[in-house]
């Protein structure tokens, strides 16, 4: 009653390719931070981190070859994290819009 769970063995070269990308990305993000991008700094750093994290999730954690349900659970987890961060930050960002203290 569940779509086939993976018996699929991931070839070693995939692991090494992902490993090399991760290392490269680490040093790229470290170097990029020394360039003054002002407010863009955090977006660049976060997008690199998200890319690295998705590499680890898909290949090292076999989610790419996993069941549909596993993929759904991973997406749900990340969605709820974004929910928590985004909606709470909405309040913090808009606190000074009204110009009246405390409103």
């Amino acid at each position, binding site marked *: 009653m569940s779509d086939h769970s993976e018996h699929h063995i991931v070839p070693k070269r995939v692991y090494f390719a992902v490993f090399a990308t991760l*290392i490269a990305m*680490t040093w790229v993000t470290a170097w990029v931070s*020394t360039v003054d991008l002002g407010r863009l700094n955090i977006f660049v*750093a976060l997008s690199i981190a998200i890319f690295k994290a998705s590499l680890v*999730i898909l290949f090292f954690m076999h989610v790419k070859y996993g069941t549909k349900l596993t993929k759904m659970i991973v997406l749900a987890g990340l969605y*709820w*994290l974004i929910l928590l961060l985004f909606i709470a930050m909405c309040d913090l960002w808009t606190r000074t819009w009204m110009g009246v203290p405390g409103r």
Partner: protein
Amino acid sequence: MASHVVAHKPAEHEPVNTTLRHHFASDEQQKDAATIGMWVFLVTEIMFFGGLFLAYFAYRQAYPAAFASASGKTNLWLGAANTTVLICSSLTMALAVHAASLGKKTLLVIFLVLTLMLGGAFLGVKAYEYHDKWVHHEVPGAHFECEGCDDAGHAPLFFSLYFGMTGLHATHMLIGFVILVILIVKAQKGEFTTKWYTPVEMFGLYWHFVDIVWIFLFPLLYLIDRSHTGLK
């Protein structure tokens, strides 16, 4: 819902499967349940760290100057090197799971030991960094000082976040070490076969998750604004 009951007994001649628990119908169902259970657990870990990440983003947005200069006090290249160490341990863990699925016992033990050592190296560097901050009084408390920091009044918040997040991450790694040692002992005794290596794979998921948390912690804590605080 009256259902006419259909016999569903496993055929007698099947070899008795010792690792299959009584309430599962098949190996595959048990393995699948374990994987989903592990991922649901990792979702709770994501939300657990999520609370801290919200505190981080809230206070970084409120006190950008303090966070930029306080982040400058952390050692950038040591952090990058440490990230590399942790990614290596993630690789060796993945190769360990790979070896377990092919039934190569010795290779499995080697990779598990390598993962343990690389993890230990990572925590060693962290211990050094903590000590370095302790010496420079950069630990929030009575005699906290952050010379050369802009808005030093809010700097303790950054260091509270720094120690809070990396401390929680380190605690998860210590728990990982304990499980890793148990796995090494079991692997050495040859308990894992190609048909049943679920504990190794589940621990692999946990270890990669701990690595992902650090992948986010490194830029957020070390790389806030390195453009004019120089490459210390």
